[in-house]
Structures are given as C-alpha cells and as structure tokens.
C-alpha cells in the first residue's frame, strides 16, 4: 500500500461520512406542518381581534390546531419515522431539540397565558426567540447556513414585535412563519 492509496482511503471515508450526515429529510415535514399550524393560528387570531366575537374564545382554535399538530407527530412517528431507511445522529439530536421546543411552546402558550404569567401581547416575540434558538442550533447540526439566517430573521422579528402596537405582530408572525418554516420545510423534503 502506498501513501497515495492511504490518502485516497481517508478521503473516501470522509466523503462517505459527509454524505451520510446529509440524510436529514424528516425535519422538513415537521417544519411544514407546524409552520402551517402557526400561520393559520396567527391569522385566525388576528381575524378574531378584528371581528370581536366576545367571550373568552381566542384559545379554542389554538387548542384544536395544537392538538392536531401533536396528533400528526404521533402518527408520523408510527407510520413514517419507523420506516425510514436510515436514522442519522443529526436527525436524532434535531428531533430531540424540536420536540423539547414544541413542549416548551405548548406550556408557554397555554399554561403561561392561562395563569397570566405571560402577556398574550408578548407571546409572538417569545416564540420568535425560541424558534431562533431552534434554527440556530439546527443550522450547526445540519451544517445549513440558511437555518442560521432564519434564526437571525426570527431574532430581528422578535425585536420588532416587542415594539409593535396593536395586533399586527400576529400578521408579521404568520408571514415570518410561512417564509422561515413552511417554504424551507417544503424544500427540505428533497434532501433525502
């Protein structure tokens, strides 16, 4: 065996490892579904603030949407994830990260608002900050620069939302979610 052969073997090993790490398509499905849920929720919330139905009904659509999201997660885990041909370490870490993120959001969104611990006005910027953490970390896990750019976008969005008066932050959050979650999530589905 020559030095050249050894170098070729090392280059080959590096290539195989790098190719394998790029097999991360599952996250795209989750991003799309939760992005659509969040966008619909934000738009419905905005409409409800405009038509002023009355009564404490603002949370009902969120409860239905979030319950739908978690149902999707359960079905997805059983029907899709168990059939995936490969499970990468990146997928495993990202799944854990986003699952913990989803639980935190659900607690903050429902229990935080119910107890009055969090003002509904500041829920969108708080979610933006949490989403930014998720995207920033995922950007390093998958070595995807665009995810880190999404995180920057969410942090800037959060700064703007803290200063916006009225309910326009709901529309801004919906637009950002479509731009930063639904569209990239759709594109990510072709990663595999």
């Amino acid at each position, binding site marked *: *065996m020559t*030095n050249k052969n*050894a170098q070729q*073997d090392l280059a080959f090993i590096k290539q195989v490892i790098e190719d394998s790490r790029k097999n991360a398509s599952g996250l795209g499905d989750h991003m799309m579904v939760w992005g659509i849920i969040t966008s619909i929720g934000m738009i419905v919330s905005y409409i409800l603030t405009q038509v002023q139905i009355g009564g404490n009904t603002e949370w009902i659509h969120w409860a239905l949407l979030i319950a739908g999201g978690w149902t999707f997660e359960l079905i997805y885990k059983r029907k899709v994830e168990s059939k995936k041909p490969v*499970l*990468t370490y990146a997928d495993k870490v990202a799944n854990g990260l986003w699952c913990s993120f989803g639980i935190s959001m659900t607690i903050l969104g429902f229990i935080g608002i119910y107890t009055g611990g969090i003002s509904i006005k500041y829920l969108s910027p708080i979610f933006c900050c949490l989403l930014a953490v998720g995207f920033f970390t995922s950007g390093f896990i998958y070595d995807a620069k665009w995810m880190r750019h999404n995180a920057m976008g969410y942090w800037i969005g959060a700064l703007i939302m803290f200063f916006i008066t009225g309910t326009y932050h709901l529309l801004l959050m919906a637009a950002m979610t479509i731009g930063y979650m639904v569209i990239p999530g759709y594109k990510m589905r072709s990663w595999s």
Partner: protein
Amino acid sequence: MAEFDYQQLDDIIHSRIRLAIMALLVSVESANFVFIREKVNASDGNLSVHIRKLEDAKYVSSTKKFIDRKPVTTFQITSLGQKAFSAYVDRLSGLISGD
C-alpha cells in the same frame, strides 16, 4: 512512492466495500440493507457477504423486523466496531504522516 506495511491495518476493514460500510455506519445511528446497498453501490449478494464478515467480527450488529409485512434488516455499528474503525483511521493517518 513509499510503501507501507499493510499488515498494520485491520484486515476485516481493509477492503473497499467493508471500509465503505463501516464509514457509513459510523456516521449514522442505524441504516437498513437497501440504504447501505445504494450508498456503497454493491449487489445484494456482494453486500451480504461483506456485512456477514463484519457481523462475524462483531463490528456490526443487525436487527430484523417486519415493515408492511416485508422483512427489513437494520444494521448498527457496535462499540467494538467503532473502536476498530477509529484505530484503522488512526493507523492510516499515521502511515501517511510516517509515524
């Protein structure tokens, strides 16, 4: 061109296809037979022979399950396999640097 003593390298791993299988499995949690076959570009028979060799050396373990009534075999690298692969890469790097 400098020659190396190939006997310093682990015989089990030192084959292009087994090296590819090990490199693939070391970088993922688990992978099924079809995925590995596509990635290493091998025929069913060829891949079976090489994976069996790695399993016999306890470098790789397998799990069989049924998905949609079809048998699916999933492979994982063992801790012994990880150590062997790491030692192989270290040895290869050492040979290049002349250590």
